């Protein structure tokens, strides 16, 4: 009668279901939190990667283009373009700053990206509408009013022709681009660099960073190295360094607590299974005593309990795995759960549950068959 453990589980179905639900919820949380971190990691880097630039320049002491406060004068552009190892005229100034646009009368959050059309730093084409107009003057001109136009992220739900307000100025939505949301679904608003300076910096002719592309014959590391002793008071980083900076600043550091929480949840899953197995074993000591009195070996008793632990763990872990993908699909923020990573997490969780179940099941093996002579089951 190989299914005796199933009959026992069916008899104690409420406890079995509650235990499986407990494991499901814990696995779901572990995977979902991992998915949030993955989502942040993807969003943190997708814009940077999309620019095509592999050299990122920020002000000295800023700690990186996206990390600290960085203001550069545009005059550096000339020297940058003259640097060896860069693709000709690839250097481009960039404004990248958080903003609080008023959208449909409500304050919202977004990141303003000001760049020169046709240069590195923004999308080259739109999905709907058109690209914003180019500034009439390449150099800064205090009297000139730049085109108050903006190209928005497709997921913002804005219509072409709608108006949004940034820095007290009204900008017209002229186009929509493929979504390149920044961390935690922060949409990007693309505009002419002069427009960004106008609405965010009060026409102050500064940029946050400059970007460029190294030529095929020279590695970005070599290009970055030649600026090490530059008198320009700038920091030069490669694409990889910039990505590492962003991930560390926007994902790893703020999510340290979440990583800790994930480990705690793993522990909780193990403790939950161990505790319930232990309590169930205590509750069944007399039954186990009877089984041993009628000839059950320690191995038989251990197998009986471990089969239950394994089955409950499999059910809980699988349900958690499936639900995590469903929840990720309907979550209000971007959650990216990788199948392989989830399977690894699920397998580890399964073994944590089984191991703690095994520790508790050892109690059952030690049950004295003499218990069969006392009390009621």
């Amino acid at each position, binding site marked *: 009668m190989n299914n005796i453990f199933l009959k026992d589980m069916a008899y104690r179905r409420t406890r079995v279901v509650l235990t499986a639900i407990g494991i499901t919820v814990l696995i779901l949380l572990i995977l979902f939190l991992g998915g949030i971190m993955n989502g942040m990691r993807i969003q943190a880097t997708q814009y940077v990667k999309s620019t095509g630039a592999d050299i990122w320049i920020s002000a000295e002491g800023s700690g990186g283009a996206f990390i600290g406060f960085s203001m550069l004068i545009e005059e550096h552009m000339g020297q940058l373009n003259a640097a060896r190892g860069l693709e000709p005229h690839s250097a481009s100034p960039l404004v990248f700053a958080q903003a609080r646009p008023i959208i449909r009368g409500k304050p919202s959050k977004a990141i303003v990206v000001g760049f020169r059309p046709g240069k590195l730093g923004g999308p080259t084409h739109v999905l709907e509408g058109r690209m914003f107009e180019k500034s009439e003057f390449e150099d800064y001109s205090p009297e000139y009013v730049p085109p108050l136009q903006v190209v928005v992220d497709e997921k913002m739900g804005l219509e072409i022709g709608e108006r949004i307000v940034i820095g007290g100025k009204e900008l017209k939505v002229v186009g929509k681009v493929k979504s390149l949301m920044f961390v935690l679904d922060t949409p990007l608003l693309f505009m002419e660099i002069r427009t960004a300076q106008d609405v965010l910096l009060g026409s102050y002719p500064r940029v946050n960073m400059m970007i460029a592309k190294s030529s095929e014959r020279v590695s970005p590391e070599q290009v970055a190295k030649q600026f090490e002793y530059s008198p320009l008071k700038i920091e030069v980083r490669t694409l990889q360094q910039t990505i590492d900076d962003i991930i560390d600043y926007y994902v790893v550091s703020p999510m340290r607590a979440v990583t800790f929480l994930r480990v705690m949840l793993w522990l909780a899953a193990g403790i939950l299974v161990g505790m319930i197995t232990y309590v169930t074993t205590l509750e069944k000591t007399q*039954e186990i005593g009877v089984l041993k*009195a*009628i000839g059950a070996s320690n191995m*038989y008793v251990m197998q009986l309990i471990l089969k239950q632990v394994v089955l409950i763990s499999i059910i809980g872990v699988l349900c958690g795995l499936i639900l995590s993908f469903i929840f990720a699909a309907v979550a209000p923020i971007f959650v990216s759960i990788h199948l392989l990573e989830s399977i690894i997490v699920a397998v580890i969780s399964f073994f944590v549950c089984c191991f703690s179940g095994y520790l508790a099941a050892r109690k059952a093996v030690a049950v004295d068959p003499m218990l*069969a002579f006392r009390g009621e089951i």
Partner: protein
Amino acid sequence: MGIVVEGKGLTKRFGDGEAGVLAVDSVDFAIGEGELVMLMGDSGCGKTTLISLLGCILTPNEGELWIDGEQINHPDQDLSVVRREKIGFVFQLFHLLPYLTALENVIVAMDLAGKKSDLAENRAKELLIQVGLEDRLEHRPAQLSGGEKQRVSFARALANNPNIVFADEPTANLDSRQSENLMSLVRELRQEHSTTIAIVTHHEGLRKDADRIVQMKDGRILSE
């Protein structure tokens, strides 16, 4: 008549020092093949402890135990094998597994002994029909009366054709009619299977069925 179970100088102590209890004190005791022996005596006199020692449930502090001519070597031997192959138990409170039907409760004993499932099922059905439960095969313990549960318990004890069945107060939780029915069953089973049975009981009315009455007091055998 061969000896089925024999204890020589069996002693069992629970606890140490002044708080310790000498439950069985140097008992020499043997049960012959086909015998129905009744162990009687006041509560706490050591009856249950003695059959636990004889049934390989407890390990004696001192003494020797022989079952079916083979000495039991307590520290080294897997006693679960002895329990499932040579001994059957009937408990005062029946102790059927609540999640199994009457039929499955009998099958499980044979399953432990590694008997094939179809053979085990046929044998379990035979035994349950023999104890008068042919219409209760698929009933769970909660759906059975006390007397019916004890019948299932006897069927389970006999499942592996044991050398001896130990029954601990089998009628203690039954009314007089159920007790009488159970004892009739015991008589029938003895005739049918020639089973050796040792019953611990307080029930004076059962004396008439015994081949031998063993009276215990303070862990010792007073008279046989």
